[in-house]
């Protein structure tokens, strides 16, 4: 009955602590505080001049310029590479019909968080289907892709923990680190040697306590560069230094691997070695929302302590239904992953053949990131190229000196041809200026 004794102590312990704290608190209250000088106070209230609500100098654009509207795709020749639409699910009319049925049955919103009658049976279906698809024990559904990453991370990482992560990690993950208040160590992008050095340095300092966890957080395909993480090497390091690894598969889920199971399948890694995979329904699945999958013992924790899961209304049922439909296609027709890969590689090869551009992204990535070869005035040049392409009805994302384009399965040779000639033309115009 040793444990019993220990448990009894555990119960009495807090009671004593509470008592001591109360006594301390009460005794502290009695101490006279430094007096407030009334006159000075009134003067300070009168003269207090706060800064304006917002920093007006930071407003640079008009509404129209800052929010670029979706292009009208019904115009012939319009090529929208700005939206994430790998499998053309966004234009799938079957999905819309399914959504209609679902809205008629469940309404649009779920009117409550998961705990309070916001768990609709399609949520449970989607959760079990996602877990089954990834061959893991359990999954948990979020209502927004951004909050998935940040909430899931901050559910596990604590102030006393240390996080090792790639310097190109997404903004959502960085918000998660902030919320967790953990110590964060960034290593050079996809540089496992640098990671090992940082780890060794850290071990040498010997500051770490036994209790504290070390996390390794990487992305499958990096949203800012389109590169793939060197997972096999990372897994070795994880094993060696006993790190907990979380992979953000927002982009790589449903893209990489023979059957679309993401970066783990791509490299043939046993998924049970990964502690948690976070993903988004906004990528290949063409819906909105996000999810985390892992072993039950890990994922279960999020259901009680992940802020974005507990304190927010659940995903609108029809959006989960859409994701279920997409998973149906993934499972019944795994050939589409090969198709997408062929197009990704084709576009990559063609882009690399352009003389004025550097391609940063991986050939297998459906997100292509390109920039000009010349480093000078890159920002202005890319803006100009972007403008030329837009005027030719080709839409891409201009991200501070880089152009991002999303490959889609519906791109045919003439589309790619058009893209290339326009990019070439734009580069010429740009160099003339």
């Amino acid at each position: 009955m040793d444990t019993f004794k220990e448990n009894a102590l555990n119960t009495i312990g807090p009671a004593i602590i509470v008592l001591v704290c109360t006594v301390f608190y009460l005794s502290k209250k009695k101490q006279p505080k430094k007096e407030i000088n009334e006159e000075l106070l009134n003067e300070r209230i009168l003269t207090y001049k706060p800064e304006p609500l917002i920093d007006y100098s930071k407003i640079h654009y008009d509404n129209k310029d800052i929010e670029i509207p979706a292009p009208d795709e019904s115009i012939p020749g319009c090529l929208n590479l700005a939206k994430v639409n790998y499998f053309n699910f966004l234009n799938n009319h079957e999905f819309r019909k399914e959504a209609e049925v679902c809205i008629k049955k469940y309404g649009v919103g779920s009117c409550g968080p998961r705990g309070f009658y916001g768990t609709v049976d399609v949520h449970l279906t989607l959760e079990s289907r996602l877990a089954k698809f990834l061959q893991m024990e359990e999954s948990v559904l979020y209502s927004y892709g951004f909050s998935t990453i940040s909430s899931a991370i901050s559910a596990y990482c604590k102030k006393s923990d240390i996080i090792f992560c790639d310097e190109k990690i997404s903004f959502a993950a960085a918000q998660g680190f902030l919320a967790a208040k953990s110590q964060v160590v960034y290593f050079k992008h996809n540089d496992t040697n640098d990671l090992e050095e940082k780890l060794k340095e850290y071990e040498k300092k010997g500051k770490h306590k036994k209790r504290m966890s070390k996390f390794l957080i990487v992305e499958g395909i990096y949203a800012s560069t389109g590169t793939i993480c060197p997972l096999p090497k990372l897994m070795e390091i994880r094993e060696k230094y006993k790190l907990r690894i979380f992979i953000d598969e927002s982009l790589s889920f449903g893209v990489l691997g023979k059957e679309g199971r993401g970066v783990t399948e791509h490299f043939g890694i046993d998924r049970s070695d990964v502690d948690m995979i976070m993903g988004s329904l906004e990528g290949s699945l063409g819906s909105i929302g996000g999810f985390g999958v892992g072993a039950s013992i890990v994922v279960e924790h999020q259901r009680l302590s992940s802020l974005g899961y507990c304190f927010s209304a659940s995903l609108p049922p029809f959006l989960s239904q859409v994701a279920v439909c997409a998973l149906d296609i993934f499972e019944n027709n795994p050939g589409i992953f090969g198709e997408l890969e062929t197009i990704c590689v084709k576009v990559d090869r063609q882009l690399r053949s352009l003389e004025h551009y550097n391609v940063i992204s991986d050939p297998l990535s459906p997100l292509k990131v390109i920039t000009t070869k010349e480093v000078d005035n890159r920002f202005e040049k890319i803006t100009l190229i972007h403008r030329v392409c837009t005027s030719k009805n080709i839409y891409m994302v201009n991200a501070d000196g880089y152009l991002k384009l999303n490959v889609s399965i519906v791109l045919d040779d003439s589309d790619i041809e058009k893209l290339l000639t326009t990019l070439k033309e734009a580069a010429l115009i740009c160099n003339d200026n």
Partner: protein
Amino acid sequence: MATRTSGDFAITELINEDAFQNRSHKKEYSSLYQNGYSKHSDTNSLCKQKKYLNGHTLTSSSDEEYLNFKDKYLNGTSHNKHFKKEKVLKESFEKPLLITTLLTLLSFYVLMFLGYLSQALFPPKVLKQRNREGYPRLYDKFSSFYSRYVYRRVRDCWNYPICSVPGAEVVLKDRITKDHCWTFEFTGLERKCLNLGSYNYLGFADPKSSCTEFAIECAHKYGLSTGATRQQYGTNELHVELEKLTAEFLGVEDAITFGMGFATNSLNIPALISPGCLLISDERNHASLILGMRLSGATVKVFRHNDVKDLEKILRTQIYYGQPNQPKEQHKPWKKIFIFVEGIYSMEGSIVHLPQIIALKKKYKAYLYLDEAHSIGAIGKSGKGVVDYFGCDPKDIDILMGTYTKSFASAGGYIAGSKKLIRFLREHSYGSKYACAMSPPVTAQIIGVLKVLMGKDGTNLGKTRIETLARNTQYFRRRLAQIGLITYGCEDSPVVPILVYLYSKIAMCVRTLIQNNIATVGVGYPATPLLEGRIRVCLSAGHTKEHLDYALDMLEKVADDIGLKHSRLPRDTKPIEYEKIELN
């Protein structure tokens, strides 16, 4: 404290300079009213000279002081206009008997003790992760103990799956557990319940309305997602229309929308606020607000729930001391001071004391951030939230935030305010930069609801819904008081927490009510203070009088069975006639 009468109320108090200076200042509470609210008379305050019905008036001394100040310095406008806006807030936070408190505490310790005991005897029925020897644990011991051996025993009261619209009635998927809530099995049966749990205040969840038809139409026309962020090609006509309508509805210049209410708070507060600012937050604020404040890196101070005096005290001391840790005791004022409040607090059922807070905000030159997640649509003559309810000027609130998840039966959130503010947010909000735009059918549903509420559909259905909700609220709350249950919050708030105190009674209550086909929500520690376990009822315009009567009968039965009639307030025994309830 000895002067308080037997029913120990925490009724709201006026802001009063003198009271602030003299902390030991005595309050007198007198003349209990039949409906359980008390008249407040304060020896020093202005309201002594005026005749008020009961409860609490919102013309505060500071408000007046502010006006005088304005008169003196700015040759301000007439008093009269201001005084017309008086509103009587009736609210009650009755305290339980000491014995109830002690029992609650005891029962919690017993529960913990049993938890430890069963942890020692029965191993958890979850598989360990493979190949993780030598790894530190992923989360701490206590939280896994609490979730497996305390929360697990009552796990069946939450996360009940539904398989219908969360309307006035909801169909639950029946489930049973054969192993003390470690796992659940579906029985294949369904149970139709009266829905007192969902945030469907105006009853728009029902897909029979015209709004849902519009949503379906837009699903076909625009697809289900725009597949991009708001800033980069994800904006379509619906978003623009929604923002225009929202701004018009709220009576402000402009608005911006996001795909999730939680993210609206957690992604925009950091964009607006930088270190060096002071954030003063109500202690019962929602997790999303707290997260946003934490992410902003600014200093956060907390004031007691809805306690305007405490807020003023903090404002004064903070303006006095300024930013801490300055060299050589120099005085460096805060860059900006923000007050964070919610319209209706979802766990307390209380309504924010907005006019007083606006007065304070003006007096101390702070900014006000108001989260109307639960109040938008749910209160106010035309459903415009607390601002409308108190008849305040929406322009007095610097940042108006709200969500579309509740009254609008959709998803997402907005921030509304001046043109400049919104322009700033469009450019700098993390939400429009990095997160997916709102789904078109979701947007369309909100547009539809807004049109109904504003009467743009050519009917007065919106107004009828708002009135029905107000009537339901009054009826339900008054009847509960007659039964003798302790409820928290303001008379007009459709969120009704019913105090049951004991942890095990929460579970008992929820289970029995579900057995009787009523779906309610139980809330206990850690979501509420340890000693204030409660079940919560959210009323809806979709509920009919029959629904409410059934629920009240059942609640009374449960209250008799497990002893919940703790209220010691005098009861009004006159029957309440539903149709004759006067709406204010």
